[in-house]
């Protein structure tokens, strides 16, 4: 339920007998608003994310929209009786759009501009509020002897403390995973297990084969490792890895603090990197007996090509980030078959 603007039906509002000139003006206004709405809808269709490359382009567009909203509000204010609540709602929708425009561009804008723009938006809202207060028919003011209904006092709602039997340190250790290993081949077959998350932490020069479908994978502090994993239904979170190869399939993949790593991914959304360098990407290439069913059940059977749509949170420009690249085809592992048997 996004903010849909319901345009007032002119016939339903024509109960008051307005003088024709005012009525005409009002019609023109409604038409203008609806044109604008159309334009907005169309621009949404043609370009799903109207974000601008430069601050200047954004500011120009922003101030243009601000101008037109201000003039709408002024017009309404000058002839209050000829506009309805519906007209106000339309202006309010325009303000919401302006806010969305800011939202979409906020990331690349300097924080001063974001603050300034937010301020402008809240000022627009305020002046619209002022107009709408004027428009609301005044009630006759009178004192009443009746005491207003007493509201129960607001009480802070605090959950009653519960006793946790197991202590924190214990909880930390008993989740499935491989931790603190050096130079080993680590194999886990998750088939037939009701698996939650799987953790790989503090591994050096290990090969990890994870067959089956983990719910989520956490990877932390790996050096010179190879990680081959079946599809994860949820997300994969990677932090602090160096000199590794990862073959992973998941709905979401976040990569933090990675250096000199290759990622062979199948992913439903954009993989992201943050604070990473010299990382390369290629499509998923893992095979084991039954992987097709696992991929299907995790809804990862289709190659959407998202593996190369990498978002670098440290490089938010249109030009290619220097921190990652597509792994050249002649350097890729073409196909990789793993089994639970040690090699």
């Amino acid at each position: 339920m996004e903010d849909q603007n319901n345009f007032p039906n002119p016939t339903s509002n024509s109960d008051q007998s307005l003088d024709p000139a005012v009525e005409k003006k009002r019609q023109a206004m409604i038409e203008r608003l609806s044109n604008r709405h159309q334009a907005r809808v169309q621009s949404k269709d043609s370009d799903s994310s109207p974000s601008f490359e430069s601050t200047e382009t954004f500011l120009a567009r922003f101030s243009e929209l601000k101008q037109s909203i201000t003039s709408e509000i002024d017009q309404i204010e000058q002839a209050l009786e000829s506009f309805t609540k519906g007209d106000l709602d339309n202006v309010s929708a325009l303000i919401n759009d302006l806010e969305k425009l800011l939202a979409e561009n906020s990331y690349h804008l300097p924080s001063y501009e974001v603050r300034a723009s937010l301020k402008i938006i809240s000022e627009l809202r305020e002046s619209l509020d002022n107009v709408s207060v004027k428009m609301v028919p005044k009630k006759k003011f009178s004192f009443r002897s009746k005491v207003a209904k007493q509201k129960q006092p607001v009480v802070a709602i605090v959950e009653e403390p519960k006793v946790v039997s197991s202590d924190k340190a214990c909880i930390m250790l008993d989740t499935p995973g491989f931790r603190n290993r050096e130079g080993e081949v680590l194999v886990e077959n998750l088939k037939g297990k009701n698996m939650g998350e799987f953790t790989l932490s503090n591994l050096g020069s290990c090969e990890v084969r994870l067959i089956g479908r983990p719910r989520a994978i956490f990877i932390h502090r790996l050096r010179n490792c190879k990680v081959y994993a079946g599809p994860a239904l949820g997300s994969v979170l990677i932090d602090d890895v160096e000199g590794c190869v990862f073959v992973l399939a998941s709905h979401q993949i976040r990569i933090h603090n990675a250096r000199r790593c290759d990622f062979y991914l199948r992913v439903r959304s954009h993989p992201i990197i943050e604070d990473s360098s010299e990382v390369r990407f290629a499509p998923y290439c893992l095979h084991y007996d039954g992987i097709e069913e696992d991929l299907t059940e995790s809804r990862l059977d289709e190659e959407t090509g998202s593996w190369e749509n990498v978002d670098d949170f440290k490089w938010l420009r249109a030009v290619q980030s220097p921190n990652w690249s597509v792994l050249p085809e002649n350097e890729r592992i073409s196909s990789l078959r793993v089994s639970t048997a040690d090699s």
Partner: protein
Amino acid sequence: MGLLSIIRKIKRKEKEMRILMVGLDNSGKTTIVLKINGEDTSVISPTLGFNIKTISYQKYTLNIWDVGGQKTIRAYWRNYFEQTDGLIWVVDSSDLRRLDDCKNELHNLLKEERLSGASLLIFANKQDIEGALSPAEITKVLNLEALDKTRHWKIVGCSAYTGDGLLEGFDWLVQDIASRIYVLD
């Protein structure tokens, strides 16, 4: 909130609430917003910047600001504090390693004066994952009992994946905000 703005809100027929949703990356914020709005949650990219969602909930209009949780973006959270009626803090209950980070970020956030009047809902998300901490355990680890006594808060276990618990959380938050802002109804 000044008296004038309270009066304005009362005058408005449509009752709006502004809700800020934050938490570490990978906690499931965008998934929660889309799920509660009945949208497809199967393809969600990590949030670059933020999303605004306007939804009707009971007799209120909620403007939900879902701000990305990646480290690089956390510095920008402060840009969205103004006029926040409700704060939703989302926790990945299965990410045990980062619970300390989570606790520190939350307590830092709550020091912010502009958020001092906001009702606080904590979603202990991903309860459907085997091995996730329960809301009671999260309460303990995040040290929620030590929150300022004037703060209205509640923790609710949920799963954005199945939808469990989301309504319970939003019901509480909306009621709590309404009881503060729209007392004169």
